[in-house]
C-alpha cells in the first residue's frame, strides 16, 4: 500500500479523533517511517493554510490540535441542535473558577472564600462532566479531598493550558498591603513621593 500524503493522513486523523490530538499521538500513526515533530507541525501548518477562509479551522487546545467550525459560521451551525447548551449556575461557575485558579484545593477552602457551603450536587456535576477530579488528600483531620481541573476542562473551554485562563483580577493595589490602605479614615494622608 503506497502511503498517501502526510497531510491527508493527518487531516483524516484530526477529523476522526473526536478529541484534540497531540503531536505524539500523530507521530504514533507512522511506526514504520518515523517522522520528526517538525514534519508533523509543518503538515498542520499547511492544513491551516488550506482552511483559511473556509468554514473550519484548526485550534490548539488542551495540548493538542482540534479541527472545529470557524467562529464566524458557528451561529448557523449551532442551529442544527434543537436543545440549547446547558447553562451553569453562578454557584457552579464560582466553584469551578476556584478549583481552576487555586488548584489543588479542598471543598472547605472553596467554602471559606465563597462564604457559603458548596452543595454536593455541584461537586458531583463537576466530577461527572470530568472537568474536575480528586488528585489527593490534605493531611488534615478527615483527610479532605484535593480537587484539580482535568484535560477535559481545558478541552471544553477551548484552553491550550491553564496559563490561558483569563488573568485573575489583581487586588486593588498589590504593592501596598491592605492594612496600610485601612489606616482609618485618612486615605488622602499617604505620603506622595513627588520630589
Amino acid at each position: 500500500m503506497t502511503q498517501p500524503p502526510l497531510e491527508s493522513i493527518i487531516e483524516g486523523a484530526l477529523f476522526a479523533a473526536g478529541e484534540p490530538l497531540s503531536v505524539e499521538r500523530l507521530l504514533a500513526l507512522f511506526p514504520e517511517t518515523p517522522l520528526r515533530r517538525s514534519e508533523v507541525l509543518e503538515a498542520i501548518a499547511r492544513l491551516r493554510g488550506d482552511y483559511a477562509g473556509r468554514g473550519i479551522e484548526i485550534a490548539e487546545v488542551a495540548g493538542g490540535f482540534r479541527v472545529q467550525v470557524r467562529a464566524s459560521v458557528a451561529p448557523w451551525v449551532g442551529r442544527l441542535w434543537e436543545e440549547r447548551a446547558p447553562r451553569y449556575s453562578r454557584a457552579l461557575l464560582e466553584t469551578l473558577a476556584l478549583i481552576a485558579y487555586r488548584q489543588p484545593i479542598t471543598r472547605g477552602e472553596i467554602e471559606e472564600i465563597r462564604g457559603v457551603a458548596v452543595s454536593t450536587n455541584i461537586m458531583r456535576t463537576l466530577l461527572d462532566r470530568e472537568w474536575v477530579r480528586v488528585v489527593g488528600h490534605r493531611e488534615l483531620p478527615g483527610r479532605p479531598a484535593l480537587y484539580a481541573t482535568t484535560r477535559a476542562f481545558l478541552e471544553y473551554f477551548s484552553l491550550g493550558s491553564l496559563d490561558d485562563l483569563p488573568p485573575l483580577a489583581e487586588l486593588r493595589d498589590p504593592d501596598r498591603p491592605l492594612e496600610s490602605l485601612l489606616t482609618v479614615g485618612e486615605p488622602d494622608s499617604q505620603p506622595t513621593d513627588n520630589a
Partner: protein
Amino acid sequence: MKALDEASDASAGGGPVEEPSPIARVRGAPILSLPQDLYIPPDALEVFLEAFEGPLDLLLYLIRRQNLDILDIPIAEITAQYMDYVELMTELRLELAAEYLVMAAMLAEIKSRMLLPRPAAEGEDEEDPRADLVRRLLEYERFRQAAQDLDALPRLERDVFPVQAELPRGHLQRVPPEVDLCELLAALREVFARAELYLSHRVEKEPLSVRERMSGVLERLAGGGFHRFSELFEGLEGRAGVVVTFLAVLELTKNAVLELVQDGAYAPIHVRLREQTAEAESHDTAAA
C-alpha cells in the same frame, strides 16, 4: 446598575440572537433590571433574593449599588441594610443559609468595635476592625469575576463545534488487551478469598485433567447422536488417560449432561448428549 446585572445570573446564552436574560418575570413581563429602592414586585423579589450566592455576594451588591468605597465601608449603614434583606428573606421563608446569620453577627461585632474609642498610644498598630471583612470581600469579588470570565470563554456545545468524521468500516483494529497468566491467577485468588468456605469443600482435590477431559468429551459428542462408549478411550493414552476419561464421563453423567444407554446385558454401551434429538439437531445446524 452594574451591580444589579451582576446579581442576576451572569451566564449569557450563545446563539446568533440573544436577548438580555430577565431577572424575573412578573405576569409574563420580563424584568430586566431592579428598581433602586427596596420595593420590588413580590414575585420578582423572591427570585432576586435567591440569586445571591451567600452573604459576601449580598454585601458586595449593597456596597456596589451605592458606589461605596469597599476600603472604607460605612459599617453601621451597611449592617442595617444587610439586616433588612435578611429579615425579608426570613419573611419570605426563603431557605436562609446559616452563613447569612453568621455574617450578621460578624457585622454587629465590627460595628461595636468601631464605636469603641481607640487608645491613642496603640493607634498605629491597631488593625481596622473591618480589615478582615474587606479582605474576604475583595478575595470573593475576584473569583466572582473569574467565574464570569470563565462563563464567557468559548465553550463546547455552545460556541465551539468540533468536526466529526466516520472511519470507513473495517479499519478499526482494536488490539485486544494483553493478559498475564499471573493476573488470571490473582483474579481467581480474589474469588477464593471471597468464597472461601464454599469452595474449600468442593474444589480441593479435583485434578484439572478431568475437567479438561470433560470439555473434550463434550466436544466429541457435540455432533449429536449416540457414540460408542469405548470410542471415547484412546489406547495410546495408557492407563492414566483411560482413568481420566472415565472420571470425566462419570462426572458429566452425574451432572446430567451425558446419557449412558445400554440395550441389554453385555451389549455395547452408548453415550450421547442429553438433549431432545430434534432440538439438538436444530441447535447444531444453527451453530454450523
